[in-house]
């Protein structure tokens, strides 16, 4: 699939997908979107890169690092990072749920506040976005681990 057409399309599409993913993630707590959808879209962008180039492209082409070919895919540096991201996401989800108990609210309870920023004006800050961030990390980490390992076989 590493044709010129595919690579050119990927170059154009990937940034758009990523921006859309972030906007869906940020608006998730009161509009359609959220950590899951944002995460899945992010995974789509990465998968496009993987399909157009190859699994090592992110390491070699983007980050300019060497890749150790001797280790199995599960211990590949990128995949290790994905797996850490998955665990981190789970930690964030559980911790954000438990954090609500400390001030005496119910498990998983959420709150929000408004802050006034210079250029943006009134901005809503919702605690739900922390939970969403955890979901996002779980989805991205989990799906990309699966895609990398299965794609490699």
């Amino acid at each position: 699939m590493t044709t010129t057409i595919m690579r050119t399309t990927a170059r154009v599409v990937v940034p758009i997908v990523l921006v859309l993913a972030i906007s869906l993630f940020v608006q998730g707590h009161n509009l359609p979107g959220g950590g899951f959808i944002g995460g899945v879209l992010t995974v789509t962008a990465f998968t496009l890169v993987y399909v157009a180039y190859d699994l090592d492209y992110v390491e070699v082409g983007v980050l300019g690092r060497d890749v150790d070919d001797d280790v199995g895919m599960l211990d590949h540096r990128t995949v290790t990072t994905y797996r850490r991201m998955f665990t981190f996401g789970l930690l964030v989800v559980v911790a954000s749920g438990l954090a609500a108990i400390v001030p005496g609210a119910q498990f998983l309870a959420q709150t929000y506040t408004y802050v006034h920023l210079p250029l943006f004006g009134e901005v809503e800050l919702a605690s739900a976005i922390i939970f969403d961030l955890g979901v996002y990390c779980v989805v991205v980490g989990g799906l990309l681990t699966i895609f990398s390992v299965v794609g490699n076989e």
Partner: protein
Amino acid sequence: MTALLALAPLVVALVASVLTLAVRSWPRFQRAVSVVSALVYVVSVGALAWTVVFAPDASALVYQVGGWKAPFGITLVADALAAFMLAVSAVVVLFTVVFSVPYIDPENQQVYYHPLFHFLVAGMTGAFLTGDLFNLFVWFEVMLMTSYVFVAFYGGARHTAAAVRYVVLNIVGGALMLLAIGGLYATVGTLNMADMAARLGAPGVDAAPVVGLTALLLAAFALKAGLVPFQFWVPSAYRAAPLPIAAVFAGASKKVGVYAIIRLYFTVLGDANVTTEVPLVGVDSPLAFLAPVLLVMGLVSIVVGGVGAVSRKRLDGLLAYSSIGQIGFIVVPIAIAAGTSSASLRHLGVLAGLVYALHHALAKSLLFLAAGTIRDAAGTTRLAELSGLGERSQVFSVTVLVGSLSLVGIPPLAGFFGKFLVFTTAADQFATARVAGSSIVLGVLLLGAVLTIIYATRVWVGSFWGAQSDRVELATLDGLQVAILVGLAAVVVAVGLGFEPVYQFADAAAEAAIDTEGYVTAVGPGGEP
């Protein structure tokens, strides 16, 4: 603050799974975290049971997750029934986690064994605690996702085949369940179980589809419980999964299906004002529909499981078939309870089912773990190659003897009270309604008891008596594993000897199961959000 106790077991299981995942680079520490978490889980369940059942001012605990009031948010309801089921599974969970440490090889333990185990526990806990029908579906899925991985855990051809069968079957079951829940939501207009009970109990409610929709749910729950005609996944899945996990499947996660049937039909639909004509059955309420269907499923399960177990060549296969039959023993009194109009017999039936579930959880997990020790030591579970184990280790043999005798129902072990209450229920039913059906029920129960004696004897004669076979002579039994088995066997004996508080607990659970009004009042739906 006490309301937090209703949440505690769930949070402990969730935190345990995340922690064991986070520390998996340090295998010894991970195992320690896993075992300690299981201990904390047991303590939290114990505290919950004390508050809900035994404390002087005991009452059901209700927790509104996220602060959203019932019926709009998801409610956790810890009544005596939920507490009883949690207590049963907590015992199984503790012993299997501890047993896994010396049994599963260290590398495999590190590969997600402990995180998945605690996710399985979280799924069971959530299913027992939730007061929301859709949330029940979610916890079922959590439980199933981890079960899929466990069935395929060893990754051989046989395990993969079993896992594929298991996945396909449960996806179909899950789809049926979701369909039924969607239909119930469209018909009744709520997913909160207490709210649903209140609405269906109101006079003049028009909810004719409820009987049919709950029949779909019954199929999904029976699939989970492994009742005939949904039993065919059981033997291959149990044999493919690691044996401690098979102990959890048979001991605890099957009981989730039984619990869901009791909760849905007795608590939610017990007072339902639904009248429909069902072809063949000719029925006027969901409970009256459940009675004949569940009775036939239970009786056929007893026969299929018993006959299957008698003819197995391997110990783990025998135990898998035996657990199909034992689930039959659990649901038959429940079916009798559903069919009767007498309040005391209904109470007795549910009580008998619950006590039998407790006994089966203890005895069957003990036997599955013992099968694990045998496989670990002798490298096989083929009964023909295992003669002479009795001579090899007397302590180990005694633990298996305790498990087998409890399964057969010898006093003073836990199994005696289970069998005794089941037969009391069937005899009471026979005494009140002298019809041919009642005598058939008694007859099949007796046949099932005889079959249990036959296969328990086969295990004993086949693998414990006689001269030591080559494999047994070379086998070395792991001391720590045997010690854990002795602990579990002691629990089986203790439950039998100190049956009074256990009976009190089960009695409260049965009372909570059939007390629709109490459940609705405790949750208190219909308030402002």
